């Protein structure tokens, strides 16, 4: 799980072009979206959906499902573990 979390952090930094942020800066349980967290927005949610499909084979047809799944790196990792093809 640790490894997966680390991998996800690197993927987020790379795909979302989060300049000046390292994996250590991202708290596993901190919210990814909104101003209290990493400050991601709805376009980032779409990019994360692409990461899920490209890198993990998980198809998410409905972006609105993402709200809970994408809450934090932890919830995202859990989702991937449960659904990875």
């Amino acid at each position, binding site marked *: 799980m640790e490894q997966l979390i680390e991998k996800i952090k690197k993927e987020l930094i790379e795909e979302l072009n989060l300049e000046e942020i390292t994996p250590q800066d991202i708290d596993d349980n901190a919210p990814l979206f909104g101003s209290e967290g990493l400050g991601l927005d*709805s376009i980032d949610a*779409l990019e994360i959906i692409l990461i899920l499909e490209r890198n993990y084979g998980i198809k998410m047809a409905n*972006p609105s499902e993402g709200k809970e799944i994408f809450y934090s790196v932890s919830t995202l990792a859990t989702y991937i573990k449960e659904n990875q093809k």
Partner: protein
Amino acid sequence: MRIFVTGIGVVSGIGLGVKENIDAFRHMKHGMGKVTLFPTELDMPVSEVKLTNEEIKSILALQSNKTYSRATLLGMLAAKEALDDSRLNISSCRVGFISSTSVGGMDLSENFFIQFKENNSKGRLREIAPHDCGDSTEKIASFLGVQGFVTTVNTACSSAANAVMLGARLIKNGHLDAVIVGGTDSLCKFTLNGFNSLMILDKEHCRPLDNSRAGLNLGEGAGYLVLQSEKTIAQQLYCELSGYANVNEAYHQTGSSPEGLGAYMSMDKAIQKSGVPKESIDYINLHGTGTPTNDLSESRAIQRIFGQRVPLLSSVKAFIGHTLGASEGIEAVYSVLSVSKGIIYPNLNFVHPIKETGLVPVTHFKDGLNIRHVLSNSFGFGGNNSSLLFSSVEGV
């Protein structure tokens, strides 16, 4: 100085020319179907104009071996209808042409690119030369014989509204006596895929203002108005362009704020500018794309302005699709007819109101009503929000 509409022209997925478009509304015939203009893996309903480029060139008596972007051809059809309708003698005064497009010549350049990508000495130059947004404008202007000021607006989906505004202001500021304003856009693979990547397309026929709405359907077409001030009007006119406004919501790159602040500001400003009391606004031509976000924001903004007394309203986008840079050009034509002929347009596929707002749109075509003022909205990416107000002018 007052600005009047003296000519209108339109082509869309529901018809060529004003008459065909209105008849389609009257008979509830929408323009949605499968994509036929280009090969694509995406299976989405779109509203294509039911004419090939060759057929359009033939109608316009253009040489069939010359290459024109589809947006140019659609624009020529609609702009010519508008100019002919106005009976304006183009050399009798200072006439300009302001057009908008989001796609430009992308229908051609995306073909060019496939070959160029493989080998950069490949690809036909005549397919890339018309790529930029200004190309269609210049070609249409030349086709019409316009000698005066010509320019192109591109603010995504609100473009044509901004073109209308610029045209009106050029007359008011003394730069022009008359102006042909509006927009044109054609379907292309780039745009279809672009919207698909944003996951805002509905795989089914869209349902503007319905609680179950799931996205928009794209369309193509062109719509133009001829605007003149009282100084140069020689014949009957349709209505007055009494108000307009453009604001930036500054909320997000593509989405609108849940409260619809941008929509509220643009409608409010347009109404203020017109001096028309909001109780006299009888109909709203919604931007109404059918996306969960837009329809909710727009509805909330409308309720904020009108309170309990919301005018009749509807979206035409389940008929003609979201025509992007052409949308306010086409929908301004419909709004003008709404005021001058008392028409209200049906909002297709409506079953249940949005639960947060409860607004119920018009679902049947009616004409001959007393429509005093019509508000028409268009909202684009980059927070660009525009509204136009058209008013009836008895006895002018």
